[in-house]
């Protein structure tokens, strides 16, 4: 499904030159649950953004489902993200002025679904995760756990093949983290490919494949 070939990415951060990826090589098959661990600044998030078509590498190529992601035009890459990739962020990145319902509607709207379809599908999805009574609440009016559920529903609204999760449990208490991991595990078993960046080894342990990043390089760890 995903193939990285000799991908390097350097950028400036607070006036300092940083190596995000250094000749990174990676191959991920459909249905894998990959955990990427590494210390802060090792390039985990850069890897995730590169896989998601959001950060053009300086060198190398990224292939998604057989096509070179960064050879696509900006609109085509946006369409690829819409149709194939879901993002789950550590801080959820919910749009603060939209309600839970509207936040989940955004990817459906971007996919060109009608207002009625958006409304119907969004209600169903949020009710499934127990947020039927929080549809009209803005993120600030929701608990952290509820925000995380809205974010997950939004990431999965267009039924992506690949979920990219950046420290998904980073803002959650242990119980909520456990609940989310169980949910991700279940989604993976249903066929969703997941690439999850984390520095929490206990969370990484739930994945079926483990990668370690150090100074922008990817190395394979033991795989279940």
């Amino acid at each position: 499904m995903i193939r990285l070939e000799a991908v390097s990415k350097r950028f400036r951060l607070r006036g300092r030159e940083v190596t995000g990826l250094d000749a990174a090589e990676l191959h991920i098959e459909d249905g894998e649950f990959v955990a990427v661990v590494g210390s802060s600044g090792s390039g985990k998030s850069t890897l995730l953004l590169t896989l998601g078509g959001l950060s053009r590498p300086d060198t190398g190529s990224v292939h998604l489902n057989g096509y070179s992601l960064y050879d696509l035009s900006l609109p085509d890459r946006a369409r690829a993200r819409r149709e194939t990739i879901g993002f789950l962020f550590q801080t959820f990145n919910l749009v603060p002025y939209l309600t839970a319902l509207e936040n989940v509607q955004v990817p459906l709207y971007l996919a060109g679904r009608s207002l009625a379809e958006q409304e119907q599908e969004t209600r169903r999805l949020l009710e499934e995760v127990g947020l039927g009574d929080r549809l009209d609440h803005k993120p600030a009016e929701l608990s952290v756990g509820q925000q995380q559920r809205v974010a997950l529903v939004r990431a999965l609204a267009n039924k992506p093949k690949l979920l990219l999760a950046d420290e998904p449990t980073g803002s959650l208490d242990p119980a909520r983290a456990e609940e989310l991991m169980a949910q991700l595990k279940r989604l993976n078993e249903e066929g969703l490919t997941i690439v999850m960046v984390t520095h929490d080894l206990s969370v990484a342990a739930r994945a079926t494949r483990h990668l370690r990043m150090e100074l922008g390089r990817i190395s394979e760890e033991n795989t279940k």
Partner: protein
Amino acid sequence: MTTLRLVWRELRERPGQLATSFLAIGLGMTIIVAIKTVAHFSEKAVARQLDELGANVLILPKGVSVGDYYSSDVNSEEMPEEYVGRILNSSLQGVDNLSPKLTQSVEFGGSRVLLTGILPKNEFGNKAVWAEGDGIFARPTGCGTVKSPLAFLQPGQPDKTAVRRAVVEELQPNEVLVGAEVAAAHNLKAGSKLTLKGKSFVVRQVLPETGTVDDSRVFAHLHTVQKLFAKPGKLNGIEILGCCESIAQGTLISGLNKLLPDARVVTIKQIASTQLKTNTLMGKFSIIFLALIVVVGGAGIANYMQSNVQQRLREIGTLMALGMEPRSLLMVFLAKAVFLGVTGGLFGYVAGSALAVVLGPQIAQAPVLPLPVWLGWAVLLSTGIAVVASALPAFRAARLDPAVALREL
């Protein structure tokens, strides 16, 4: 979710910033609409003043003064009737009507009266005093109402009467129009007969009293008078009803001077000069305010949009991650600019019109009403400014590196 709903929700999220930008553009438009509305009615007031005076430009033979002309110094110089054709065939703007005249002194009933040869259709176009009230010569007045010498006789114009049409269209060679004073002195009325310089005439109509020299004159067809006094193709003067704008700007006078270098062109625009100056001043002010609103309003909106983009970096990155295309992102920001422009323009029109209606009469010396045409202009102008000012920040947002926008590196 729709683009508009996304824009609307975001606008409601930051009402303070929105209000500042809205006021910048809205107040600017208020001032422009107010100035333009007052200026419009002030120009109309000037036009009305000039029209009420009748002819406002005189073309005289080079050596004849205005005093000579009005004192009917019939022995003064003459000029060729060909000048009329020269003016009519030129591309001069602002000539609403013109009436050529030849005035000669003639003995009647033991005293001398002035017999003035006129082209009746043109003469009635110039004589606002004859047009007042409900008399048979009544016609609409005001700058531009007399589009051509015959305009006020066109079908569909108000105040038409069969009598007036007959008089004006066909003043026969043996017919005269008699001023009120002459008629009273000699007991003349419509149908009366009189002899002038050996020729018999019938009084076609007694003219309304005007309080001017016209009351003591007798009017016949120009060509009849020219023939009677053996002065074919000769005139004493041409009275022109010029449109005020062209007079105010001086284009009509300079044009006439070029066209008729051997004649003397006199204008009476000084009568409304104060108001004309006010109009010119308002015209200049509106340009200054337009420049100010473009700079201040535009810079305010550009600044607002730029800070809005900065504040929404994470949100922009998230929307990109969810698959929003750069073009759609651009539309989100431009739709916001359009909203600001349209509402600012609407506000500007309403507030500007209200301001003009309240304060305008003191400046325009006339009642001021809202001008519906400025609704469209205000909205168009303010939307244009808002969109142009927002274009750069919007393009920047659309071209943002999502990785930077997400600050997740």
